[in-house]
Structure formats: structure tokens, C-alpha cells
């Protein structure tokens, strides 16, 4: 894009860079906001059908302009700050939240279009996602409200806990593709006629499931919507926010979800790859890849909605237990099996024994199906074994009564 500005308009390099970046940022911001608006409508309609209702269908065709009506409403609402609140922190919290969210959009590959190709894209996503925590804590602390404080604390505990399984769930993919760049990861999934997605390998599938579950917690989706559990702590850290600031929190929240869907679709579901993209090529191929990409992301979001419509939320201690006792062991085992996968598929000189048993490693044109089969069998076995074991352990623990008695409380145990 920089070249386009330089060549077509004859702009100097610095101007071209500024213009190109500005255009990209604008596109991302507008796209993200529109995407959030679409998501709120989409979620409400889908959840309504699950509940035998119709959902918003008044404003615009099929209610599609409902989010705009609500945006206008929130903008015209009075913006209040509690008297005792820390005004600066209170004001900055939504800003920090939104900024952190928007930054994650920098590395999202829109089909075959990349705003920015960082060599550490995956790491960037996770690191920036951590900034959310700061916004939550600021909102919870700055509001000077007990519910907000509880919500903020819950949020921090949750985010910090779930970032670990989230990061570790991506490691198998990094091992398999050998890169952290989102662009490279997406490109690596274009084999098998556009269907060589990571999710179709056992390791990738487990990683996908674990990453998605951890991301639900990162995006504060049910069953992990504890920081804003409306039936317990009113609205969590958002309790004292009104008007546009509240809307900004919501915007950040839904944009995070959108980003999570996009990232998951890119890393595990092949991004814009699909049958026909490579064959068409050029502009049409790009367009098709964009469509594939959106379909995948919306499918993921539908699963989020389905889960939201069905299950209750976990309790705080159960949430922590789930992250540390369930997700983390499985993620670690998955890293091990992905290492084995890479070894079985690729090692040639490093381990002569594999070559003796299974033949030479395959290439992209002629894959070695023996090696592939063995790798699939081994990784499935390891992962399933670990799953059964961890579940068994957790089941046994949950059978035991979890009730603290009065005496224990009195003793401060």
C-alpha cells in the first residue's frame, strides 16, 4: 500500500507511510465497530430463536439497524461519575479497554489481506490481550463501588489464569508450522486443496478446543462471564458506568470476541483458505477467501452464542480450578504430543530410526501417509489418555463435598 501511494501519487516515503497507516487504522476501526454492531444483532437474533422468540426485528430490515438505534441512545444518555470515584482512573478505564482491543486487530488476517505482518503475531495478540486486565482493574478500582471492585478483582484473576492455557494452546501450532507470524500460519494451511487446516490434525484439534475454551474466558463469555455476572454483582466492573463509557466497554467486549473468533479461525480453521481460493487467485480468490474467513468466524461466534444460551456460569473458585486443574495439564500434554507429531512427520537425519520404520518424510506434493497415520494414532492416544485421566481426577475431586463449615470459617481455614 505504501508503494501504491508512492508510485501512483508520487508521495514521499514518509507521507506514503502515514497515509497508508492512517487508511489501514481507519478501516480497522470502522470495520471493528461495524463488526461489533453486527455481532450484537446476530447474537440477539440467534439467542432469540433458541428461546422461541424473534428478537429485535423493528428497526430496519429484520431489526438490523437496532445496534445503531442503541448507539444513539447510549450516546445521548447522561454520563455520570460517582462522587467518590477516582475520576481520572474512572475515565481512562474504558479507553484502555478499547485501545487494547483495537490493537489486536492489527495482526488479524482478513482472508488474504494482512494489515500488518508481525513476525511474532501470535505473541502480540496474547500480550495485548493482557492489557484488558489493566482496564478492568482500573474500572473496578476507580469506581469506588464494592460490586465494581469485586468484578474487577474477579476479572483480573480470570484473565491472568486463562492467558496461560491460551498461550500454551497455540504452541503446538507454532511447533508444527515453525512460525509465529499469522500470515505464515495461514499460508501453511493451504495444502490439500485449501483444506489443510490445523484443526484436522489431532494435535490441532485438541489445541483448537483448548484455545477456544480459554478464549471464551478471555472474552468474558458464558460460562466464564464472571467479571460481569449480572445476577451476582450487578454489572461487575461496569456497574458505575453510564452512557457512552458503558457503551465503550461493550464495544471493547464484543470487539474482543470478534478478534477471538478471527484469530481462532485464522490459526486453526485455515483463515481464508478453502476450496477454490488458490485456483481462482487474484482478486476473486481474495474475495472468496474473505467470505470463507467471515463464515468461519461467524460459525465460531454461533458456538459462543449457543453456549451462552445453554449453560450457567461457573463460580469463581470453579473457574480457577478449571483453568489450573483441567486446561493446563491438557495443554501441556498437547504440547508434548505436538512435539512427537513434528518428530514423526519430519525427522529424517535427526532420527534414522523413523526413516527405517516409516520411510522418508513426505513432501507437500507426495505426503508420506504411513508417517501421517502413525503420528495421528500416537497423538490421539496420548491426548485421549490425558483427557480421560484429568477428567477422572477432576470427577473424583468434585464428588467430595466442597462445603466449608462454620467451624472452618471461624478458625480462618
Amino acid at each position, binding site marked *: 500500500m505504501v508503494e501504491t501511494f508512492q508510485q501512483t501519487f508520487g508521495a514521499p516515503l514518509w507521507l506514503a507511510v502515514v497515509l497508508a497507516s492512517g487508511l489501514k487504522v481507519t478501516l480497522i476501526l470502522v470495520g471493528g465497530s461495524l463488526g461489533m454492531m453486527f455481532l450484537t444483532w446476530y447474537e440477539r437474533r*440467534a439467542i432469540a430463536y433458541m*428461546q*422461541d422468540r424473534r428478537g429485535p426485528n423493528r428497526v430496519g430490515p429484520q431489526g438490523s439497524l437496532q445496534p445503531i438505534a442503541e448507539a444513539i441512545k447510549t450516546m445521548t444518555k447522561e454520563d455520570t461519575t460517582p462522587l467518590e470515584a477516582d475520576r481520572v482512573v474512572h475515565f481512562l478505564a474504558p479507553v484502555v479497554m478499547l485501545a487494547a482491543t483495537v490493537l489486536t486487530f492489527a495482526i488479524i488476517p482478513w482472508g488474504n489481506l494482512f494489515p500488518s505482518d508481525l513476525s511474532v503475531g501470535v505473541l502480540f495478540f496474547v500480550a495485548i490481550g493482557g492489557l484488558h486486565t489493566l482496564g478492568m482493574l482500573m474500572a473496578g478500582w476507580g469506581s469506588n463501588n464494592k460490586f465494581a471492585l469485586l468484578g474487577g478483582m474477579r476479572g483480573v484473576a480470570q484473565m491472568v489464569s486463562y492467558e496461560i492455557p491460551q498461550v500454551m494452546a497455540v504452541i503446538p501450532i507454532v511447533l508444527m508450522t515453525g512460525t509465529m507470524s499469522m500470515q505464515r500460519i495461514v499460508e501453511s494451511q493451504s495444502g490439500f486443496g485449501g483444506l489443510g487446516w490445523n484443526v484436522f490434525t489431532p494435535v490441532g484439534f485438541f489445541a483448537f478446543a483448548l484455545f477456544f475454551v480459554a478464549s471464551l474466558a478471555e472474552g468474558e463469555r458464558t460460562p466464564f462471564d464472571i467479571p460481569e455476572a449480572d445476577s451476582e454483582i450487578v454489572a461487575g466492573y461496569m456497574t458505575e458506568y453510564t452512557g457512552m463509557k458503558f457503551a465503550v466497554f461493550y464495544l471493547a467486549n464484543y470487539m474482543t470476541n470478534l478478534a477471538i473468533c478471527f484469530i481462532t479461525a485464522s490459526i486453526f480453521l485455515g483463515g481464508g483458505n478453502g476450496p477454490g481460493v488458490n485456483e481462482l487467485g487474484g482478486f476473486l480468490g481474495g474475495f472468496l477467501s474473505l467470505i470463507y474467513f467471515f463464515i468461519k468466524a461467524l460459525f465460531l461466534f454461533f458456538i459462543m452464542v449457543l453456549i451462552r444460551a445453554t449453560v450457567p456460569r461457573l463460580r469463581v473458585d470453579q473457574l480457577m480450578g478449571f483453568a489450573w486443574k483441567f486446561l493446563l495439564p491438557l495443554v501441556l500434554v498437547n504440547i508434548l504430543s505436538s512435539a512427537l507429531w513434528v518428530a514423526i512427520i519430519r525427522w529424517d537425519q535427526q532420527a534414522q530410526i523413523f526413516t527405517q520404520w516409516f520411510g522418508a518424510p513426505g513432501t507437500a506434493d507426495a505426503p508420506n501417509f504411513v508417517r501421517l497415520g502413525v503420528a495421528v494414532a500416537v497423538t490421539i492416544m496420548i491426548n485421549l489418555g490425558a483427557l480421560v485421566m484429568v477428567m477422572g481426577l477432576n470427577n473424583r475431586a468434585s464428588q467430595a463435598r466442597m462445603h466449608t463449615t462454620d467451624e472452618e470459617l471461624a478458625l480462618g481455614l
Partner: protein
Amino acid sequence: MTLANRQGTGAVVPVERNDQRFRAGQGTAAGLSIVFRKFRKALFGKPNSDRSDTEGQFNVQYPEERLSLPEAYRNMPILLFDDATGHELCTSCFQCERVCPPQVIHITQAKDPATGKPVPSAAEFIIEYDTCMSCGYCAEVCPFDAIKMDHDYELSTSNHPELDVNYNRLLRPVSYYETIAPTLWNDVRESAMKKLQNNIKRRPGAIGVDHGQKVGAKAAPAAVARPADPAGAGASAVVPAAKRAPVAAIGKTMSEEKLAKLQSIRADNQAKRGGAGAPVDSAHAVEAAVGVQPDTAQVAAPDAATPGSVAPGATGPVAAVGTSMSEEKRAKLEAIRAAKRAQGGE
């Protein structure tokens, strides 16, 4: 058969807690599949109509679509008058006032101006709609079937005092009640009419026909003319009839019903938009029949044109009976104001 004839049986059954040893998400998956089935059925299924359906979309799109109300539906009490003679059925026996639990009914009995003796008719009848709890006792105890429960539930207003409803605005023709509750009225019609005839004999002059607007006893012709007048009576009967289909069936509206309702809503809207149209007609008709001053007749027009107000037939003639000077002045003032309001509105 006495109560102790049959002995019911049954056991004490501990509920099954399903404490299976191993849980691997199968329970949650089952729930997800049920919700997904619901989603599929609601998305692709037809909107649901039958009471036995448990899948589909159950919304009633309120302003366009309405559930038909059962005959027994009770919202707020109204008073009836006879279409043919214009006589009100109420005899001010005070039964309803006495039974009313929140005590919102206030009746003043009419007196014969000549003798000063009480007459079986109400001079003023006020119900505080805002405090009424819609229990329906007044309609239940009324020995003359004069007070009935209305089906109009769209009563919201920004004018609170308006909810102290006076006699004038409480009255509806019997034909209106017949449209909303045909079988219920059928059951009591004969006795009610018989009692009414008896009471009419005991009402001297025009008492009991001028809707509580005790401005003078000379208004009899107006009242008699009103029901005969096609525009007034027609409008009074037709509008509510079309508005609320008098169908006994409860449940979702059927397609024919929907059609009828749609038409009625359109007619309503037209009437509102047209503003002057129908009511002016009725006012002219009243004028022609009664031969009163045009300006007093005009009072009827805007009054009837206000949306949600009582049927034109009920109000029109009322305005047409102003005789005493002060009353007339007041009426004129009101007419001017109403005209202004109508202009502003349009």
C-alpha cells in the same frame, strides 16, 4: 359420591440425582443439542399457532398482532345504555359501590326535579380507573346488568386526572357490549331488558337518558335522536367491534382474524388521520336530527375525534344538549380549543 369414596394412592419417591461416576461433558452436550434443535425449529419452522406446540416462534407482534380476548376478559368497568331508547341500565342501587374492594365507585342518585324523590337512575357515576383493581365484582353483583367489564386495555394517558372517569365517559351502548361478549350478554339480555323497561316507567321525563350531564331536563329529543342516527350509532358500534374481534377463542390469531384486524387497524388509522371525516358527519347528523346550534354540535366533532376516546355516539349528543348560558359558553370555549388542538395536530 362422598369425598372419602375413593382413596388416592401414591408413593414417596426420592428424586434421581444421576450421580454417575464419570462425566465428560455429555450432559452439557445434550443441553446444547436441545438448544440447537430449538434454534433450527424456530428459524425454519412456521410461526406457531396451536397450544400444544412447544417449538417455533411464540411472539405476538403486539401493535399489529393481538391475541383475541376471551369474553370473560375483564379490564375496567363500563356502564351500558340501551340503543333503542337511550336509557341507561343503571338504577343507582349502590350494590357495586358497596362491594368494590378498593372503593373507587362513587354514585349520586338522580332525583325527580318536581318532587325531589329519588329516581332509579344515577345522576353522576364516577369510577377511579387508576385505583380500580379490575376484580370484576361490580359487574358480578349488578342486578340490572348495567355495569360490565370492558375489553379495552390501552388506557395509558399522560393526564392523570383523566382516569377519574365520569358517567359521560363510562357509558357504552349495549350493542358494543354485545360485540365484545355475545354469549355473556345473550344469557342476561332478557332479564336485563325487562328490568330496564320497569325502571323506565319509574323515571320521570328525561332522567336516565342524558348520561349524567345534568344540565337540564329538556334534552330528551337529543338522546332519542342519537341512537337512531346512523352515523353516530353506527360508528359507536362498528369501531369497537372491528377493533376487538369478538371471538371466543383464545390463542393465536388465525389468518382470517388477522386480516380482519389489519383492516380494522387501517380503518382506525384512517379515522385518526382523517380526523374530521367521520365525526363531523356524525355531528352533522346529530345537528340535523336535533336542530341545535352548530357550534355546540361542533363540540362533538373534536371530542369524538380524539383517539382512544369513547365512541362518538356516546359523546356526540352529550355535547349537543347545552342549554343554560354558562354551559353554552363553556362548550363554545371548549369547541374553539378543541378545534385549535385539532389544527395543531394536523
